[in-house]
């Protein structure tokens, strides 16, 4: 028995996701009832549900995709990313574990490395790894855009932290000069 649906059906589903018909869930469900073991269908269903604000069901579809095909790397990465964006960092790290088995230099390894640094608030290493991943990834431009967004947000935090540090520095300088002025008998301006 065939467990995977045909390319034409898969293509039609992906086109439905891009169209304004809003029938993509019904199409995915129909295909899943015909091919319940096809991990790609569960992955697409999870992606659709995540995009229309049904996160609880999205997670279970993504989990199902990874359970059916543990080597389906992009589904595994997206499941972990979904868990991360749900605030479940420990689950994300555990989902991503097998990504380390991908070949050296694979973009998903860089992305997982970068996001792991992000969880630990190691911002410089996070940005380095994510940039390496973007440079290595030429098959999934949408993912590059997501990672670039994170790099931009990290940059914003670092700029804000640098501004705070500079203001603090100014404050301590004035406090020091105030004390020195007091000691030397001069009045501060």
């Amino acid at each position, binding site marked *: 028995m065939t467990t995977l649906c045909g390319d034409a059906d898969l293509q039609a589903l992906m086109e439905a996701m891009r169209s304004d018909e809003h029938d993509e869930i019904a199409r995915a469900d129909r295909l899943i009832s015909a091919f319940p073991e096809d991990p790609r269908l569960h992955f697409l269903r999870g992606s659709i549900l995540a995009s229309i604000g049904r*996160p609880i069901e999205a*997670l279970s579809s993504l989990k199902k995709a990874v359970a059916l095909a543990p080597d389906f790397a992009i589904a595994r990465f997206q499941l972990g990313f979904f868990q991360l964006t749900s605030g479940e960092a420990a689950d994300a790290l555990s989902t991503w574990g097998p990504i380390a088995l991908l070949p050296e230099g694979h973009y998903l390894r860089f992305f997982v490395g970068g996001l792991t640094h992000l969880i*630990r608030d190691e911002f410089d290493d996070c940005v380095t790894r994510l940039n390496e991943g973007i440079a290595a990834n030429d098959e999934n431009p949408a993912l590059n855009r997501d990672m670039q967004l994170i790099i931009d947000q990290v940059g914003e935090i670092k700029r804000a932290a640098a501004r705070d540090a500079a203001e603090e520095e100014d404050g301590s300088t004035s406090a020091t000069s105030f004390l020195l002025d007091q000691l030397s008998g001069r009045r501060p301006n």
Partner: protein
Amino acid sequence: MTVSRDPSGLELVVDPVRAEASLWRRFRFEDDLRCRETLFNRYFKLARSVAGRLFRARPGQRLERADFDQFACEGLLQALDRYDPLRGVPFSAYARRRITGNIADGMSSMSEIDAQLSHRHRMEQERLRSLARTGDDPLAALSELAVGLALGLMLEGTGLIEPADAPDRRPSAYDSLVWRETLALLVAEIGRLPENEAIVVRQHYDHGLPFASVAQLMNLSRGRVSQLHRAALERLRKRLRTNGG
């Protein structure tokens, strides 16, 4: 004073809608009761604000504001149990309707005698019954009871579970140093209580929930909550004695 803090890396990527869905999933489908308390705490202010609005809209009635708060909390607890997180309706909209309905029902069913016995009075009686022991040396029992009740007074409104950006409700600079130190010690010790005892203390003293509502929140009997309350206060008393020198 509010201290600003840089966001953590995780906060940068967390999507609030997904994070809340994760709480609902763990509470509803994975029986994680801690998530139930987290959701209750998250929507507690909503319940209070609905109570406040309805109370102000009905001046001159016999009930106190605390009664409205109590009905609102009950409504919130019911909403937590009946809400279907898969239907796509935001919980706040669903909960607001249930809270409003429960306040209206509570007001109409409350008898004149109930109304005369204020919410605060009922809470104090409940607390007293939880702490009072029979069969001990009466003087020792009285002394223990007094310490327990005093601890309860200290715990009320200490802002134990307020978010970091809420107004600082701790004693002001004019309160004595001893009071402030003891309070700080008390808050630290609550953090070290067993989880169930800590929930009882937080919800009863900080949110003003009677034992029946705490029991509903924790899926326990009211008697069990009373026992946990007593155990928590005994533990706090012993630890404060040890740490306070």
